[in-house]
């Protein structure tokens, strides 16, 4: 494990100063960040392999797998990418946002290690139990949701419980770090990144508790302690973690946006008040979004649905729109302040676009907002949801948020950690530089196709070979085949781009040139660290950002109107 513990430049107390961020980093925090980051990358490799088999099955021209195998592969694709890749990264982000940003040691390192072990054991149990599941009738693949009363292997539910407990244990050192910080400096505000990480951790805690309730309940039923299960209760508790975990991704990703735009782009915080208020709105309202999955359900009342799906009158969507201005504005004002911003968009065109950490972050912001964010709010409108529920457009939505948005931000973060903590130059620098463009482009188009096949043709998600032929009827979805061809090609290209990320990451760790002095990482520091303490930040122009958010709002309004028009064309339903 020398990779994880190279410690030649720590001082006597175990601290070193990062030459790129200026943070005082303690060795107790750095080791776990590397460990969780590396584990996340391995999960991505496993999930990525299943991405290939899933994509080549749904593209029925290839039609790789039959039904039995397909549902297993789909389950493993989802758990490894949507859960393991994300959550391992998020624990690493907590350790960066807490101890590293605050310049503290990581307390209770035993909990970090124990949490990691539990999470890995849970992840392995889930992978093995799904891969060896016997299928119908009582060992069905659970997919991501494990909807009761469809029965999956009992070990699967147990694995999930262990994984969730592991994540809770791994988060403890972070909470303790903040506790100690407050004890030492009771009246000092946290830095924004630490504040964002703190909000993320509370949202995560709520989600994990909901997940424990859902999966312990299902496990007890599966091992016959409970005689029956209530499908509606399970759905409500499941989605506390099912969508809550995606809110963890969101809050962590937004925190990473503030972090990376600052350290490699020179962004600053244009208004602490506004950005922190947005995080507070997340804290109060974002987890209500779990209700998005129950919009087309019986049981829950329409009042309950309206309140929750709107995060209480769109409190959390409002928060996201605040970040959508604040982050690019931070980049704009920060760069103008240092003389890097001529005209409307000079601050953007002069940015370090060949640095993959920067380009991955910017593509993450743009695509998450335009693709994942807008569709999430639109499909979360109670009535519009009828035309999205369980069809491929939903798959498009969450690939827009997670596979494009969050994954790109985390890819950028992994590159950054390789440079600054593993102290390696990126291998294949040209490929590394192009990778975010390649991935964002291919995945972006694949996501649009997913939405089109879902909305325009009503293609169901989670099914196999249905487009060309549905057994027992002459009905089919063959009209959607041309769009599936585009989807298939771009999905495969996106997977190749994902493989390029893994190649660069792994090759950098194994054979990348060592970073031995600050000069080796000087290219990461925006504009060579040029500083110009001029007027206060809010006094700088933000018209470039304003131009972008107006385009964003126009697209939002158009998508909204189009979806409602689409709905109003249907026959009448409901009270």
């Amino acid at each position, binding site marked *: 494990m020398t990779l994880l513990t190279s410690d030649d430049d720590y001082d006597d107390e175990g601290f070193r100063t990062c030459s790129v961020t200026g943070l005082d980093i303690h060795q107790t925090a750095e080791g776990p960040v590397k460990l969780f980051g590396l584990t996340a990358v391995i999960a991505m490799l496993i999930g990525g392999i299943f991405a290939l088999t899933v994509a080549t099955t749904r593209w029925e021209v290839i039609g790789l797998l039959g039904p039995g195998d397909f549902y297993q592969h789909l389950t493993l694709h989802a758990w490894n990418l949507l859960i393991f890749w994300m959550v391992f990264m998020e624990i690493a982000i907590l350790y960066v946002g807490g101890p590293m940003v605050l310049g503290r040691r990581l307390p209770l390192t035993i909990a970090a290690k124990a949490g990691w072990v539990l999470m890995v054991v849970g992840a392995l149990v889930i992978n093995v139990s799904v891969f060896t599941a016997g299928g119908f009738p009582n060992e069905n693949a659970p997919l991501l949701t494990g909807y009761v009363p469809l029965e999956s292997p009992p070990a699967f539910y147990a694995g999930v419980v262990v994984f969730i407990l592991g994540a809770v244990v791994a988060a403890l050192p972070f909470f303790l770090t903040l506790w100690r910080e407050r004890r030492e400096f009771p009246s000092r*505000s946290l830095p924004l990144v630490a504040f964002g990480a703190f909000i993320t951790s509370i949202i995560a805690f709520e989600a994990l508790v909901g997940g424990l309730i859902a999966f312990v309940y299902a496990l007890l039923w599966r091992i016959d302690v409970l005689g029956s299960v209530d499908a509606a209760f399970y759905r409500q508790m499941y989605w506390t973690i099912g969508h809550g975990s995606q809110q963890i991704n969101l809050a962590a990703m937004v925190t990473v946006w503030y972090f990376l735009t600052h350290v490699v782009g020179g962004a600053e915080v244009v208004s602490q008040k506004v950005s922190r208020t947005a995080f507070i709105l997340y804290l109060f309202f974002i987890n209500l979004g779990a209700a998005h999955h129950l919009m087309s359900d019986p049981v829950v009342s329409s009042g309950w649905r*309206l309140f929750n799906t709107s995060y209480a009158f769109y409190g959390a969507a409002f928060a996201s729109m605040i970040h959508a201005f604040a982050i690019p504005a931070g980049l704009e004002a920060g760069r103008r302040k240092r003389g890097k911003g001529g005209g409307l968009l000079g601050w953007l065109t002069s940015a370090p676009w060949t640095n993959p950490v920067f380009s991955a972050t910017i593509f993450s912001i743009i695509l998450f907002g335009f693709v994942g964010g807008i569709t999430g709010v639109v499909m979360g409108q109670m009535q519009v949801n009828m035309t999205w529920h369980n069809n491929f457009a939903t798959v498009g939505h969450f690939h827009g948020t997670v596979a494009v948005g969050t994954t790109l931000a985390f890819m950028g973060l992994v590159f950054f950690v390789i440079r600054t903590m593993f102290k390696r130059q990126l291998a294949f620098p040209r490929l590394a530089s192009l990778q975010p463009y390649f991935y964002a482009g291919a995945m972006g188009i694949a996501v649009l196709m997913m939405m089109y096949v879902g909305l325009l043709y009503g293609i*169901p998600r989670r099914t196999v070979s249905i487009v060309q032929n549905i057994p027992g009827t002459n*009905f089919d979805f063959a009209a959607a085949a041309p769009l599936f061809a585009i989807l298939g090609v771009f999905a495969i290209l996106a997977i190749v781009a994902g493989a390029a990320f893994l190649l660069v990451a792994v090759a950098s760790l194994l054979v990348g040139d060592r970073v031995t002095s600050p000069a080796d990482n000087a290219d990461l520091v925006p504009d060579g660290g040029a500083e110009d303490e001029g007027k206060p930040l809010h006094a700088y122009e933000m018209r470039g950002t304003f131009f972008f958010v107006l385009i964003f709002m126009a697209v939002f309004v158009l998508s*909204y109107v189009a979806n409602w028009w689409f709905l109003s064309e249907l026959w009448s*339903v409901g009270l």
Partner: protein
Amino acid sequence: MTSPLDTPDDDWWNTKINRRESLWLGISGLWSILIFGWMSAYTRIGDQNPIGETFETSPEEFQQAISEYQSAASERDDGAIVPADTDVYIAGLQWQWLGTPVVLEAGTEYDMHLSSLDVQHGFSIRPRDSLSKHMNFQILPGYEWVLPMEFDETGTYDIVCNEFCGTGHRTMHGTLEVVEEL
């Protein structure tokens, strides 16, 4: 300090906000209220709302209700069910839609009683000649959902299952036919 990595200045709460940022706060706040208002208003003024009464039931009870409904209903030559009144019962069962095929009349409001006799299913329905018009609902065992529906166009409507319900999921299909007059 304006770095997100540093402790902010003591008076950070009182620092001015750029006027374009204030303007954006106004625009996005207004939009948030507007879309909530529209969604809420549509439950009163709109024709498409996923709202219906829910009743607790059990697979046995619902099976019983379907049997009674079917014995009261008549049957067309091709075996399609013609309901006796405006109540229509459809249940998901691995891997078929019980209660289909069924023949309904355009312009009449029916109460669709939807439930499942085993696991969760997805009731996804569209007219065969216009795939872009589709509605999708979650169907749960143990709950009967009564959704009023009124079809205005005649033709064959295909129902597929769009919630994973086991290996045979993709074969789960049923039809509903809407005719001018019964």
